[in-house]
């Protein structure tokens, strides 16, 4: 049995290792290397356990190709984040680097469990494990007031969202008297007409919408993105999105007879989310705030794919969120590099980047265009899959609005790129870019272009994962 949950056990042991290591003051660079090494081993362990199948712990924990795929993405994402948190990180984080890694691994453990849990209490505990660690990570820069403010806001909104989810579940529980999602799945169809049950299910979604920053619960996003250390922001914007999408996909698949009746509400939420995100993002002058609103808008697109309730919509969402991880991480990596040098995340910090660091700014440009959905990059392909699955179900207006939104988004993404390409830099020297960052930039450029032209491998994988989820 332990073979099946080996990735989780390993992640947990690594987290404990860093907790103990925090007692002794170990050199931060050693810790950084260890963290990278461990997360690499973690990726390999997840890869080895890819084909496993089974249900464990009295039917609360499900291991299948879907959950293992999500764990793989999470492990890769964690590797990226630790790779990004190199020795140029803020001093406060540097002096508490072991704890920083401990919280990152704990959050990742929570998200891994989130992908596998098929019982409500397990699901909720996994959700809380990942949320609490993230509240702490956001407030990690304790000498910065804005960071503490962000952490408190994140905590309060998160706690309220969790409370509403619990309340919603208590209503659902009063109908089924069971916390196992798998056994509830079979009974759903017969009771899906009751109003109270529908309200319960609507409430139930709250905490997951909070995690994905979908509109009524997205107001934490700008402050948290701005206040947290850029490494943590990148983690929230990429890895935690994957986990949020994974758990929402599972919930939508398991209870689709209920949610299919709430289609209008969900479509409305998707439309409002993306329109709000895009319109507000246009006015932002701070890069991290801009990306916060852009991530709200992107969550709207993902919701469109998920609420199609068919395999193609879900597979394209999975495809999109995976490519979104690479695109968004690339943008954050460049911002981080610039921020460490100029000590600001204002949009003008990127001025003249194309001359000071051509490779970085090319990666940034491609990632931004891809986020905006410009062909032939991977973001376009992902959006194309999502929108085409929506059109095939007849949602022409929805797709039209989403399309208009993505036109708006190109405007503000290009505003960022404009700073890098059309302005001359204030300094004349080249920017120092380390070799690993260069390697990652090449990888990102190749990924964004290649997956745009030839999405078949990634899409096939997403379709296979969704097949396991539904089947």
């Amino acid at each position, binding site marked *: 049995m332990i073979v099946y949950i080996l990735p989780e056990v390993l992640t947990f042991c690594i987290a*404990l290792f860093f*907790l*103990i290591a*925090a*007692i002794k003051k170990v050199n931060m660079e050693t810790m950084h290397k260890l963290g990278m090494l461990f997360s690499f081993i973690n990726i390999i362990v997840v890869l080895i356990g890819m084909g496993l199948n089974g249900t464990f712990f009295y039917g609360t924990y499900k291991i299948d190709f879907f959950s293992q795929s999500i764990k793989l993405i999470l492990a890769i994402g964690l590797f990226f984040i630790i790779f990004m948190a190199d020795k140029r990180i803020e001093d406060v984080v540097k002096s508490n680097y072991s704890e920083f890694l401990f919280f990152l691994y704990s959050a990742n453990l929570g998200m891994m469990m989130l992908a596998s849990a098929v019982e409500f209490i397990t699901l909720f505990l996994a959700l809380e494990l990942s949320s609490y660690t993230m509240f702490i990570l956001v407030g990690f820069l304790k000498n910065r007031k804005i960071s503490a403010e962000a952490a408190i806001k994140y905590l309060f909104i998160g706690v309220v969202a969790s409370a509403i989810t619990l309340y919603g579940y208590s209503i659902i529980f009063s109908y089924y008297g069971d916390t196992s999602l798998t056994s509830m799945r079979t009974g759903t169809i017969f009771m899906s007409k*009751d109003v*109270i049950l529908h309200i319960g299910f609507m409430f139930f979604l709250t905490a997951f919408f909070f995690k994905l920053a979908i509109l009524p619960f997205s107001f934490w996003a700008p402050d948290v993105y701005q206040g947290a250390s850029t490494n943590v922001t990148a983690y929230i914007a990429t890895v935690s999105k994957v986990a949020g999408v994974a758990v929402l996909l599972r919930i939508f698949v398991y209870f689709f007879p209920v949610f299919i009746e709430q289609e209008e509400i969900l479509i409305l939420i998707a439309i409002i989310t993306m329109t709000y995100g895009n319109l507000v993002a246009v006015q932002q002058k701070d890069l991290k705030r801009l990306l916060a609103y852009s991530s709200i808008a992107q969550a709207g697109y993902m919701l469109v794919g998920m609420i199609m309730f068919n395999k193609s919509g879900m597979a394209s969402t999975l495809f999109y969120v995976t490519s979104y991880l690479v695109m968004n991480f690339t943008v954050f990596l460049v911002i981080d590099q610039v921020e460490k040098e100029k000590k600001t995340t204002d949009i003008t910090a990127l001025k003249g980047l194309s001359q000071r660091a051509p490779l970085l700014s090319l990666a940034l440009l491609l990632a931004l265009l891809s986020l905006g959905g410009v062909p032939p990059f991977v973001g376009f392909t992902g959006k194309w899959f999502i929108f085409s699955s929506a059109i095939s179900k007849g949602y022409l207006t929805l797709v039209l609005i989403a399309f208009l939104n993505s036109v708006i988004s190109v405007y503000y993404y290009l505003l960022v790129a404009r700073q890098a390409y059309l302005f001359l830099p204030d300094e004349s020297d080249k920017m120092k870019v380390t070799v690993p960052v260069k390697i990652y930039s090449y990888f990102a450029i190749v990924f964004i272009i290649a997956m745009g032209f030839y999405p078949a491998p990634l899409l096939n994988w997403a379709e296979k994962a969704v097949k396991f989820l539904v089947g």
Partner: protein
Amino acid sequence: MMLQNYVPILIIGVIAIAFACGSVILSSLIGQKKPNEDKLSPYECGNVPIGDARDRYPVRYYIIAMLFIIFDIEAAFMYPWAVLFKKLGWLGFIEMMVFLFILVLGFIYVWAKGALEWE
């Protein structure tokens, strides 16, 4: 049809709210008002209040409180385990040991970081 069972609760809720609001509003409307200094001071068992009610106290208490909760939960968790010890067998024993190990690790961390030192 399920909703009908809740009608009595709704009625009781409405009556409770109406009574609470009504008595406050009515007494402020028709009651006599002769305020003096003693009447306006906050009620504290008849004594004259000393200082502000919102007092500041050291943040260390929070750590003590957290540690207390952790070990409280541990005790609450161990009791049913001890009752069913024979039934659960070796698997239960190993799982409990894993749980305790994690808890002790956390405790060692807190101890080594000096959170338990009062001065």
